[in-house]
C-alpha cells in the first residue's frame, strides 16, 4: 500500500469512528447535538417541498442545529412515512407528514393490503401550514360559477370529467366528498399530480379540475387562463376575496392539505417537548413568514397536543368515507 493510499484509508477510518461516536453522544440529554433530518415523502419541487424547505432554513436559530431536507418519494408518500416510522426514535429523523398519513393506512386495510405504516407509529410535533384547493375551469368554459357547473352536471350525469392527482390520492377523496355533498355524478380521470391537472384543464382534456390555492393557481389566474369557481377552505382566501368557499355555497365540504411534523412513536418525551418548543419558534420566525407569504402558502400553526385530537377526529371521519367508497 502506498503512502497516500494508506493515509486516505486512515482518514476514512477516523471519519467513521467520529461519526459513530457522535451517534452515541446523541442519545444524551442536550438534544439536539447534531443536524436533524427532515424527510419529505415527495420528490423535490412538489407542494410539500415548498413548505418543508423554507421551514428547514430557519431551524438552526430555534433548535441550535441545522435541519437537512431529504426527499424520500414513492407510493403517494408511503415510502417516506414508512422510513421514518421505522427509524430510530431519537428525534433526529422527522417526517413532513401530510393527509396521506390518514388515508393510506386505511385504504391499505380496506383493500386487504398490509399497511406500510400505522397512525400509532407517529407522534405529532405540530402543524405548520394548511393548503386549501380551488376548483378551476378553463377560462373559455361556459361555467361562470360553481352553481352553474353543479346545475348542468345534475342534468347530465356522467357527462363531464374531472381530473384528480391519482386514485386514492387526497384530491380524489376531496372530489368524492364534493360529489356526495352536491349529489352530482362526474367521471374521474386520475393523473399524476398538479402539473398534469393544469395541462388537462388548460388543454380542455377535462371539464374541471383543481389547483393548490393560491400558489399553483396564481400565475394562470393572473394570465386569465383559468377561472376559479370555489375554494375548499373554511373561509375565503385573502388572495381571492371574490371566490366563495364551498361552505358558503351550501355544501358542507372543506378539504385542505395539512403540513405536520411527525417523529416516530417511542421518542423520549423531553425530546418531543424540545422539538415542539422549537417548531413554535420556527413558525413564528419572520424570515419563515416572509418566505411563506411569497410562496402563497398559509401558516396555520397548531400545537402537537391539539393536532393529536384533531387527527383522531379526522381519522374517524375519513375512515367512514373510505369504507363507503371502497366497499361499494
Amino acid at each position, binding site marked *: 500500500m502506498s503512502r497516500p493510499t494508506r493515509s486516505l484509508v486512515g482518514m476514512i477510518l477516523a471519519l467513521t469512528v467520529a461519526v459513530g461516536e457522535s451517534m452515541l453522544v446523541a442519545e444524551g440529554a442536550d438534544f439536539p447535538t447534531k443536524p436533524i433530518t427532515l424527510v419529505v415523502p415527495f*420528490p*423535490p*419541487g*412538489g407542494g410539500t*417541498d*415548498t413548505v418543508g*424547505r*423554507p421551514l*428547514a*432554513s430557519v431551524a438552526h436559530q430555534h433548535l441550535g442545529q441545522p435541519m437537512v*431536507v*431529504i*426527499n*424520500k*418519494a*414513492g*407510493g*403517494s408518500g*408511503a*415510502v417516506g412515512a*414508512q*422510513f421514518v416510522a421505522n427509524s430510530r426514535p431519537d428525534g433526529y429523523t422527522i417526517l413532513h407528514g401530510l393527509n396521506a398519513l390518514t388515508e393510506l393506512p386505511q*385504504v391499505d386495510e380496506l*383493500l386487504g*393490503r*398490509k399497511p*406500510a405504516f400505522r397512525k400509532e407509529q407517529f407522534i405529532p410535533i405540530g402543524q405548520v401550514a394548511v393548503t386549501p384547493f380551488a376548483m378551476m375551469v378553463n377560462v373559455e368554459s361556459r361555467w361562470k360559477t360553481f352553481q352553474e357547473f353543479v346545475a348542468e352536471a345534475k342534468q347530465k350525469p356522467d357527462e363531464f*370529467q374531472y381530473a384528480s392527482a*391519482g*386514485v*386514492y390520492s387526497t384530491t380524489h377523496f376531496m372530489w368524492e366528498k364534493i360529489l356526495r355533498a352536491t349529489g352530482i355524478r362526474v*367521471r*374521474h*380521470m*386520475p*393523473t*399524476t399530480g398538479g*402539473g*398534469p391537472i*393544469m*395541462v*388537462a384543464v*388548460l*388543454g380542455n*382534456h*377535462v371539464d374541471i379540475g383543481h389547483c393548490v390555492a393560491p*400558489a399553483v393557481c*396564481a*400565475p*394562470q389566474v*393572473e*394570465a386569465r*387562463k383559468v377561472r376559479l369557481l370555489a375554494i375548499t377552505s373554511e373561509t375565503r382566501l385573502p388572495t381571492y376575496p371574490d371566490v366563495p368557499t364551498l361552505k358558503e355555497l351550501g355544501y358542507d365540504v372543506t378539504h385542505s392539505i395539512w403540513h405536520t411534523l411527525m417523529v416516530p412513536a417511542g421518542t423520549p418525551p423531553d425530546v418531543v417537548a424540545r422539538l415542539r418548543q422549537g417548531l413554535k419558534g420556527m413558525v413564528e420566525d419572520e424570515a419563515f413568514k416572509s*418566505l411563506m407569504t*411569497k*410562496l*402563497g402558502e398559509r401558516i396555520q400553526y397548531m400545537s402537537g397536543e391539539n393536532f393529536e385530537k384533531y387527527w383522531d377526529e379526522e381519522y374517524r371521519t375519513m375512515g367512514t368515507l373510505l369504507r363507503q367508497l371502497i366497499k361499494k
Partner: protein
Amino acid sequence: MDTLQSLLYGFSVSLTPANLLYCALGVVLGTIVGVLPGIGPLGGITILLPITFGMEPVSAIIMLAGIYYGAMYGGSTTSILVNIPGEAASVVTCFDGYQMARQGRAGPALSIAAAGSYIAGTLSVLGLMLLAPMLARLALKFGPPEQFSLMVLGLVILAYMGTGSVLKALMMIVLGLTLAMVGIDHLSGFARFTHGRADLGDGVSFLAVAMGLFGVAEILVNIEKTVVREVIKPKLSALLPTREDWKRSIGPILRGSGVGFLIGILPGAAHIISTFVSYAIEKRLSRHPEEFGTGRIEGVAGPEAANNAATGGAMIPFLALGIPSAPATATMMVALLIHGVKPGPMLMEQHPQVFWGLIASMYIGNVMLLILNLPLVGLFINLLRVPQHFLFPGILLVCFVGVYSVNLSGTDLWIMAIAGVAGYLLRKAAFDPAPIVLAMVLGPMMEQALRQGLMMSRGEFGIFLSRPISATMLAVAGLLLVGHLVSVIRRAHARRGTTRAEGMPSVFVAKGGGK
C-alpha cells in the same frame, strides 16, 4: 427588433460580475453531477436551492438553470470512456461512443459531444427565445391520446435502432415493459407485483437497472480478460475530431438539435426519448446503417446534441406556462416562487429581467461549458490509463453511491446488482440491453396515456384516430412497420431468387415443398 433589444437588456442583466459568477458556478456543478453516474441535475439543483433563498431571483435561476443544462454536457463523458451513462439521457451515447473509445478515438468522441452540445444548446436557447409562447400552446394540445401515439411511435423507432436482430430488440422491449409494470398503478391504486413491499410501490428503479445493465455488467464482462491497454500519450491532434469527423457530424448535430428541442417541449422523459429518436434518424439516413454501434461518430453527435436541445425545449412549458414537466424544472420553479416571481404566461411582462436575464445567461453558459469541457477531454482521457484493478472498484463504488443517493434505498442497490448479472448474461447471449432501459421509461407513460385516453372517450378507441396529431403519429408508426416488413420480405425473396439460381434449394423452398 424588439427581441433584439430585450436580449441586449438580458445581457446587461446577466453580464454583471455576480451573475457571471453564479452562471459559472452553475455550469461547473452541472458538469460535475453530469459526469458522476447516478447523481443527476435534480440532485444538484435541490442541494443548492436553500442557498438561493437569499439571492436575487434572476441570479438564483441563472445558477440553477446552469446546473440543469450543464449536466447534459457531463453525461456523455462516462458513457464514452467506460460505457456507463453519467445521466439517463446518455444511454444511447454508450453505443458508438464507447466503441470509439476502444478504438482509441475517445478524444474525438468527447470533443464532438462537447461541440455538438454547444451548438444544440445555443440553438435551443434561440428557439426558446423566439418561439416560446407559440410552442407552449402546442404542448397543451398534447392530451393523453397524443401522448399515447407518441409513445407508440417511440417504441417502433426503438425496435428499429437496435444494432442487431430486430427480434431480439423486441424481446428486450417486452422485458422492459414487463419490468415497468411493477409498482402501484396510478389509475386504479392497485399494487402490481410488489409482493407487499412499499419500496417497490414506485416500481423498479429505472436508474438502478440502467446502472446495473451498463455499469456493473461492463465490469463483469471485462474482468474475464486481462487487457493490457496500450496507452498512447495522446497528442492534441489525436484528441480533436478530424475534418472528416466534422463533415459527418454536422448534419446529425443540426437534426439532433431540432428533434431534441421539439421533444423537449413535451411532458415526460423528453431528454431520454430525444436521444434515441435522434440515433434512429441518423441510422436511417446513414449510408452505412450496419456500422452503427461499431463506433460511428454520428451516433455520438446526434444524441448528444438532442439531449442538450431538449433542455431548452423543457424550459418552455415551465417559463411560458408555469407548468414544470419534470422534477428538475419544478424545483427551479420553487426557486422563483420563493422570490415572488411566478413563471407562466405573464413572466415576460411582469419580470422581464428574469426572463431575458436567464435567456442571455444561457448563451453565456453554453460558451462557458464549451471552454470548460474541451480542456477536460484531455484530462478525462487519462482515466483510461488507470489500471483496471483500480478503475473497476472505483467505478463500482461510484455506481453504488450514485444509485443509493437518489432514493436512499437499499432495495435499489439489490436491483442494480441483479441487473448487473442479468446484463452480463444478456451480453453473453448477444442481446443489446438498451431497449430494456428505454422501454422501462416509455412503458408507464404509454399505459397511463392509453387508459386516460380511453377514459376521455368512454372506451372508444376511435379517439386515437380522430384527433389529427395523434392520427398522424400513428400513421407514421404504421408506415415504419409496413416499410420494415416490405424490406424483410423483399430480402427474403432476393435470397430465395439467388439460391434458386444457384440450383440449390433454400430452406424456405424446402419447407414450402414439405407442405
